């Protein structure tokens, strides 16, 4: 885990928290008006829950601890054990402001008044009359560590740690101290062995090794001293900052003498290089001369390397400076490009009809520019999935540490690109699912060992394209879902009746119902039943689906299927009676003809013989109940989704079309088989077919007729 990734995570958390906090404010104000509104109560609870969870993940322990108190209160409200009072909303609003201050404080923009924090916590505790110790004694005063972690405060230190020979007699293990340093940031440890005596004089109970460490960290020098606090007086320890004089942009100063001479025209660069090639490196010369031990050269090289990397990073940060753009502006831009694409289509059409040479060439130029503009605009919105992977690595690492488990996160498909909004909205669901896998899925090392599995459990997060959708899988090799336990729980919670007969899929589906949570205990890890129902809601909102597979003893797999909700796709326009539909080109394999004779040959079965391969098809006229006269010849658009080929019978194929996706709106959310609409060159609306869902619908409704052969 490098400091960079952590910083990115922290930034993300701050952003997310800011959003949640403003939402929270609104919810609280609403709640004052409608104190019994369960939806509002749930919203407040979830906002607190998310801030707490993410806060703990990125080391905002003060915020996490504080938020925990408020969350506890709202958990009681949720369970009907505490009523929403003016006092409670007041306190919560104050708490909300305090969290805001804590976040600002972490950026050095404000300072936290611990007395206020304390006061809110105590007042909340009085309010909920905590007596049973569910809310642990509040510890708050840890703001100083959070406040010091700012990218600009990152510094590089050279640490020389030479323990006295008798170090081991105090029970100290120096390796643990070095590990502690490694956790502080980018770290290079070089063990110096030149003081180790020859074997015959070697005493394994004394410490003869010493270490050179180069560490780049956001923590201050006192934090480094703290690492060595127990060995104070038992070692030689020097800590020096070595990157003080690194400039942000000193590329000139960084030039080598030879390069400078070459630039001044005094020598030719390749002459210098060939001279240098024949020369030994300074380090080698010194070692050869017996002046320096090899280990020291190694330490110096590591130092040089690390400083160089930091400098590069700084320069990169300075030059790759990005600007933040409010997402509504981006949405507006995409909308405008969409309009432009539509108009451009009309222009091209007109030019073709008109046939005038100048107009045609202008139309072509506009077309080229429009496409380029479209691609770069879309590019702005696309992010590789991998940008979020690091945060999950950290999550798994920290959670497994807390739970005393050994778990690694394997990732695959980091470069799978997804629309920015989709990635953002996926973050919460993925955190929940991964948490579940770590917390409930993967067993403790001993249990695993006893079951004949490796002690180290694996959570695999993979992303990839599948036709027009993106599949994200979260697999674990843990205990798998316990069907009986799920059923018992669902019955106990009154979610299903005692005698319900459910399929395996339906049973797994139960865990996504609101109010279902298999976790009995209240931990900062698994939460309190905010979980799979929220995950499902979020994924539904992205028009995606969740599939759960599990085998007891072998693990579980959560598969999220999400549409590639690009704002513009390449589509194939097809005509069905008077209607025009768009089929996403990404799933289209080929188009073939279907004559009446073909249909008769197959005895009216909805199957076509395409070069010896039988392909089932769906007649759109039938499926959409469109009445029109029969045609002698129709066309089949053969699509492939999930390795399944299915044809769609249309009157004829019009051609390709740059399709700007428009939402059909909330009213048509549940329409199966249509994923959106687009506006054609003549201003009319055409519907975009949701091919996978159409195939599913037809498979479900008429399993034997359509797909069976």
């Amino acid at each position, binding site marked *: 885990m490098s400091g960079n990734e952590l910083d990115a995570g922290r930034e993300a958390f701050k952003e997310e928290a800011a959003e949640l906090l403003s939402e929270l404010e609104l919810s609280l104000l609403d709640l004052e008006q409608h104190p019994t509104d369960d939806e509002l109560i749930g919203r407040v609870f979830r906002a607190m829950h998310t801030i707490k969870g993410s806060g703990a993940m990125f080391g905002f322990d003060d915020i996490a601890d504080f938020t925990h108190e408020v969350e506890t209160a709202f958990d009681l409200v949720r369970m009907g054990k505490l009523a929403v009072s003016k006092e409670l909303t007041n306190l919560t609003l104050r708490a909300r402001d305090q969290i805001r201050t804590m976040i600002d404080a972490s950026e050095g923009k404000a300072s936290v008044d611990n007395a206020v924090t304390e006061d809110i916590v105590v007042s909340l505790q009085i309010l909920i009359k905590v007596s049973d110790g569910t809310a642990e004694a509040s510890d708050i005063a840890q703001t100083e560590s959070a406040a010091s972690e700012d990218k600009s405060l990152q510094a590089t230190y050279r640490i020389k740690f030479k323990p006295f020979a008798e170090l081991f007699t*105090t*029970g100290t293990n120096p*390796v643990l101290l070095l590990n502690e340093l490694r956790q502080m940031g980018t770290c290079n440890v070089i063990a110096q062995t030149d003081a180790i005596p020859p074997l015959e004089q070697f005493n394994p109970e004394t410490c003869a090794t010493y270490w050179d460490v180069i560490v780049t960290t956001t923590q201050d020098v006192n934090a480094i001293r703290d690492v060595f606090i127990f060995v104070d007086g038992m070692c030689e320890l020097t800590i020096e900052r070595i990157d003080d004089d690194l400039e942000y942009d000193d590329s000139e100063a960084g030039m080598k003498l030879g390069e400078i001479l070459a630039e001044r025209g005094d020598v030719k660069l390749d002459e210098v290089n060939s001279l240098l090639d024949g020369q030994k490196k300074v380090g080698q010369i010194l070692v050869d001369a017996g002046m320096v031990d090899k280990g020291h050269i190694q330490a110096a090289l590591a130092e040089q390397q690390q400083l160089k990397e930091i400098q590069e990073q700084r320069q990169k940060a300075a030059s790759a400076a990005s600007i933040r753009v409010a997402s509504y502006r981006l949405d507006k831009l995409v909308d405008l490009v969409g309009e432009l694409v539509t108009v451009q289509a009309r222009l091209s059409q007109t030019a073709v009809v008109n046939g005038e040479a100048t107009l045609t060439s202008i139309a072509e130029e506009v077309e080229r520019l429009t496409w380029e503009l479209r691609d770069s605009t879309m590019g702005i919105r696309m992010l590789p999935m991998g940008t979020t992977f690091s945060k999950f690595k950290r999550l798994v690492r920290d959670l497994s540490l807390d739970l005393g488990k050994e778990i690694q996160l394997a990732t695959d498909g980091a470069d799978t690109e997804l629309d920015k909004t989709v990635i953002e909205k996926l973050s919460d669901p993925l955190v929940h699912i991964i948490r579940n896998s770590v917390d409930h899925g993967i067993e403790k090392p001993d249990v695993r060992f006893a079951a004949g599995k490796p002690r180290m459990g694996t959570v695999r997060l993979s992303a990839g394209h599948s036709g027009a959708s993106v599949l994200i899988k979260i697999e674990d090799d843990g205990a798998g879902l316990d069907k009986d336990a799920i059923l018992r729980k669902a019955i106990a919670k009154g979610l299903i009746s005692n005698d319900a007969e459910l399929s395996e899929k339906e049973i797994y589906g139960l865990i996504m119902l609101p109010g279902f949570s298999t976790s009995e205990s209240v931990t900062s890890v698994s939460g309190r039943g905010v979980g799979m129902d929220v995950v499902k809601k979020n994924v539904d909102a992205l028009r995606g689906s969740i599939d759960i597979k599990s085998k007891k003893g072998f693990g579980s797999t959560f598969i999220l299927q999400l549409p590639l909700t690009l704002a513009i796709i390449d589509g194939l326009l097809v005509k069905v009676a008077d209607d025009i539909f768009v089929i996403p080109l990404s799933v289209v394999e080929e188009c073939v003809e279907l004559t009446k004779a073909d249909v008769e040959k197959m005895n009216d079965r909805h199957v076509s013989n395409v070069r010896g391969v039988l392909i089932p098809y769906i007649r759109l006229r039938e499926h959409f109940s469109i009445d029109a006269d029969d045609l002698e010849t129709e066309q089949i658009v053969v699509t492939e989704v999930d390795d399944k080929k299915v044809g769609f019978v249309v009157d004829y194929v019009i051609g390709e079309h740059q399709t700007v996706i428009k939402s059909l709106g909330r009213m048509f959310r549940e329409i199966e088989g249509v994923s959106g609409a687009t506006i054609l060159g003549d201003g009319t609306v055409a519907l975009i077919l949701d091919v996978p869902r159409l195939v599913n619908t037809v498979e479900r409704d008429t399993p034997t007729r359509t797909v069976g052969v």
Partner: protein
Amino acid sequence: MDKVIMTVDDSASVRQMVAFTLKGAGYAVIQAVDGKDALAKLASEHIDMIITDLNMPNLDGIGLVKAVRGMPEHKFMPIIMVTTESQESKKLEGRAAGATGWIVKPFKPEQLMSVVRKVLG
């Protein structure tokens, strides 16, 4: 195998707080009421680390550290002393006796955990 930590203190509440915290972090915990009890348990149980109070009846903390360091098999055992701030001199005495580190009372669970991680990993 979970690592085993022995908490030595004549105050049951301190022992419980330490035990609760450590168990929560996945360690096994053995409790001893004083130095003498600790030595007896050390003889019969496998123990990876000791966290001991200083002022105890029968055998005090410094005595315990010295006794443990005297045993060849426990020469390298990590031992943490629990001190109060007024006992600066005791800290040095403990260090001289061979304690690995110390923690100042009163402490919070996370402080305890960071000390344990530091010396036991």
